């Protein structure tokens, strides 16, 4: 079983080498924001972190419709020319990250975007790989992994039928 705190420590460790670029953290709702908050604390960053809700950028809108409880994307500081660390809980197909990057570019043109995730699983459908990762796990295609939280953070693996 995955130790969340251990994986989180590895993400914080991996992000240290990015510190001198004065990175801006952006968490993807909802799990990614929880990880971003912990990473923000772990790195001792002063600037507030940003949050993204990618509902308006999803590529499956025409299949599943709009989520009734969309959260607001909140990017409190100008991102032009900044180095961004985009944070999510699980990297699976890569589609969420694609949507998040599209949204970021509607706000500004950052200098770079690095990707930090707590859990990397198999099943990629786009050429997206993490720069910083907590733990890698192999799951069956029908299994679904979910971060629970925010306090304490936990992991749940569900069979799709659930």
């Amino acid at each position, binding site marked *: 079983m995955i130790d969340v705190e251990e994986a989180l420590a590895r993400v914080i460790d991996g992000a240290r080498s990015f510190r001198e670029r004065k990175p801006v953290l952006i968490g993807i709702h909802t799990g990614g924001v929880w990880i971003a908050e912990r990473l923000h604390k772990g790195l001792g960053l002063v600037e507030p972190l940003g949050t993204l809700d990618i509902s*308006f*950028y999803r590529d499956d*809108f025409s*299949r599943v*419709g709009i989520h009734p409880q969309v959260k607001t994307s909140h990017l409190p500081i100008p991102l032009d020319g900044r180095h961004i660390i985009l944070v999510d809980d699980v990297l699976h197909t890569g589609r969420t990250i694609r949507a998040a990057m599209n949204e970021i570019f*509607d706000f500004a043109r950052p200098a770079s975007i690095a990707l930090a995730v707590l859990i990397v699983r198999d099943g990629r459908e786009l050429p997206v790989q993490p720069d910083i990762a907590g733990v890698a796990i192999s799951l069956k295609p029908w299994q679904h992994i979910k971060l629970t939280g925010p306090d304490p953070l936990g992991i749940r693996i569900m069979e799709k039928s659930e």
Partner: protein
Amino acid sequence: MAIEPDNAYHLRHFLTTEDLSGGAIGEILDTAESFISVGEREIKKVPLLRGKTIVNLFFEASTRTRTTFEIAGKRLSADIININTSVSSTQKGESLLDTVRNLEAMHTDLFVVRHPLSGAADLIARSVPKHVHVVNAGDGRHAHPTQGLLDMFTIRRYKGDFRRLTVAIVGDVLHSRVARSQIHALTALGTKEVRVVGPRSLLPAAVESLGVSAHTDMETGLAGADVVIMLRLQFERMSGALIPSAGEYFSLYGLTRERLARADKDAIVMHPGPMNRGLEIASDVADGPQSVILPQVTNGIAVRMAILARLAGASAGEGRTS
């Protein structure tokens, strides 16, 4: 006008506030809240309705509603076509549906309809295929549901919980589709007290049956109100003399600073526009610190974005049938 009990019909079209529960209204307002931030961005656009075609089909003059629908659609990345046309009494019925069928053949995904006849949007909604959506942007005296919801959105943003609010709707309630949509929404949201205020000749006969109290006197009508909604005097819909003269109307029912002082000191003043300054509302009130008339217009974009996005999302997975 009978409404199909079919639930899918309600999800595919947005025709009235009558069939909406407080919970359903709250959900739309929440979605609208998240669209507010899109209007505050550098790039005021999200790709949600990319590739969709929206036709603004207006058989009656409109500036605010048509423009805000157009902006809402464009901010969702849809393609918008505006059709403004007047309708003569001999061309009603069949020609309306013929127009719609022609536009449908051009692969329109969503119609936004304004028409001087009550029930026009509903008639169109019944005739279109399953993947096509219809939004009522005002039909006769019947309903103007997107205006009703943007007013609810504005009230919620300034005043919060409806269960503690007294709302006064003042003026020409008789001819007002906006007032009808507001009353249904306010009631569904559990508003503490809804009043209609105006001369008897401009209040519908059995208005109390809608769950509101009727006042013919401004003093009592406005007393302690948290929200004052002024309505436009609709001369174009009046047949015969319902008010003695403009001057006398203003002296009895015009919203002046002195009259507004009867309402709660933090009351907000609303008007769906277009305003008749000096007739139903004094200029210094319309432009005063309690007026939220311009924020209503801004909010209209976010609320209309929410309604367009929810309808387009409701046919998710069905695909085109033609």
